């Protein structure tokens, strides 16, 4: 399989908003690549550039050696996308929508009908396959969209927040499906669920304000953070003397020690002896994400933003 290469990809929207700023990376076009980043970081913009919906302002992007800017028709044979805001047509059934999409991809009618029938089974929505989408739940509609691109037989799938709005079981099912698909597909997904990226992705990219902060396997990313291990103390009022590392208040309000693996082991031993409840693990993607984007959840700030009229 080839590679996905971005070389200083920059996007400046009409009124001067820079959505991507010299994004460069080079990853294998195989397995699952997850792009994470806050709202407005530039994920959708990058996805739309790579799927030839949007022109880049400067730089170059290639998928398996094919230039996205100059050779869109070859790219369009290779990729299929579920856009972030895609919806089913109100008056179509999932089967009809999938059928239409497959026809757009150029399948003959008969084959498209068969593929559509297969696709609804694959995402387990047979029960709703012939119901008009206006009567379906948001998650079912989302699954139908995913089914359409999976049925398309493109080798490269772009899924822009595919699991938003799915219940935990459906999400798990979709994950299992993606894990199956990745054997012979390249899946580029964006997500706000860091657990999803952690579980699924072979490669993870973190983007913030249009700049790529880090990219690599989860292990690679851990090395980008000063500390590789985290010990969470699950009881209040416990003091620990540290040789190296730092103590912070974790995202869940517990006291958390960020340090090296060796020091974490030493502290753990001590905590066990003292009979204190704790958990110890390699630093999670969530912790890496906050560390790299240098943001903390500041609830007060968010509330300020949300105070609009009509309240």
């Amino acid at each position, binding site marked *: 399989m080839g590679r996905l290469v971005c070389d200083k990809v920059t996007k400046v929207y009409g009124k001067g908003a820079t959505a991507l700023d010299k994004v460069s990376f080079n990853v294998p076009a195989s397995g699952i690549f997850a792009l994470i980043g806050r709202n407005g970081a530039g994920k959708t913009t990058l996805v739309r550039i790579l799927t030839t919906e949007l*022109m880049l302002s400067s730089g170059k992007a290639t998928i398996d050696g094919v230039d996205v800017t100059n050779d869109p028709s070859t790219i369009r044979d290779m990729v299929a996308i579920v856009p972030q805001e895609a919806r089913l047509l109100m008056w179509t059934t999932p089967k009809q929508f999938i059928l*239409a999409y497959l026809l757009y991809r150029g399948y003959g009618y008969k084959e498209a009908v068969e593929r559509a029938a297969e696709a609804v089974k694959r995402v387990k929505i047979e029960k709703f396959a012939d119901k008009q989408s206006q009567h379906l739940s948001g998650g079912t509609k989302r699954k139908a969209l995913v089914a359409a691109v999976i049925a398309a037989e493109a080798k490269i799938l772009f899924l822009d927040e595919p699991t938003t709005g799915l219940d935990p079981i459906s999400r798990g099912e979709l994950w299992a499906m993606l894990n199956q698909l990745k054997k012979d597909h390249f899946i580029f997904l964006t997500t706000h669920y860091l657990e999803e990226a952690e579980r699924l992705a072979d490669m993870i990219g973190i983007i913030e304000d249009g700049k790529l902060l880090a990219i690599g396997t989860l292990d690679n990313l851990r090395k980008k953070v000063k500390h590789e291990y985290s010990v969470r103390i699950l009881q209040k009022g416990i003091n620990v003397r540290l040789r190296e590392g730092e103590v912070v208040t974790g995202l869940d309000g517990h006291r958390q020690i960020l340090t090296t693996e060796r020091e974490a082991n030493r502290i753990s031993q001590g905590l066990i002896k003292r009979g204190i409840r704790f958990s110890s693990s390699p630093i999670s993607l969530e912790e890496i994400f906050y560390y790299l984007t240098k943001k903390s959840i500041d609830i007060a700030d968010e509330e300020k933003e949300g105070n609009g009229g009509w309240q």
Partner: protein
Amino acid sequence: MKRRRAMAVGNKRKSISSQILASILVSAIYPMQNFPIMLINAMLAPFSFLLVITFISHGTLLGVAIIGALVMTTVSAGMALQADLSHFKNDIRLQDMVVSSPTSAIVYIIGMGLSELIYFLPNIIILAILAVIFMNLTATAVLTIAVVMTIMFIFSITLSFMLSTLTVDIIQSWAFTNMVSTLLSTLPPVYYPITYIPMPWRYLAYLSPTTYAAQLAQSAAGFIALSPTNILADWVILVVVAIVMLIIGVKRTRWREP
């Protein structure tokens, strides 16, 4: 090179007729199946004018109005497309999925155009029957009317497609629809002869391509007398305007967003 093919596999037998059918399904067949009222709505617009003009003129303008309604049907069909296209592009992002698929802009718009014709086909058939009953059209007249209708259809479809790709939501699209509707259907004398418009105002009508189409159709049917030079001039203007629209359309339509 072997590797290249590994990723580009997918579906090799791309069928353009499938791609055209896809547009006809999503934009005509499925909605009609589920919401037949749309069809009635599409039929009403040109007819209401036909009736009003016929009543007001005590029947004397029936023939002109029938021809006008025929021309207006294709113009309306093209204009109606804009709202659909804007919906597919901005509301449900179907167009994004199509842009990034093997379907090209031209194939997409041909399918969408045909689906709009399907809506208006009953209209055209009924009007054609009325024309046969109430009018005495020569073969040349029939041919002229058909060609004029086709040109106006291509013109309004191209304009609709271009405008729809410039919009970011349906509200913007409505603004365009109103402007286009004034230009293509309110301004020009479609249901009555242009001589009914008092003089300085008549020049205003000449701003609309529909005026030339209507004049050609009306003169072919014998309702107005045009000199050969006038007829030639009308044809030239109509064809040139349509070609210019096509060129602008091809250049300005944002299939892939800039």
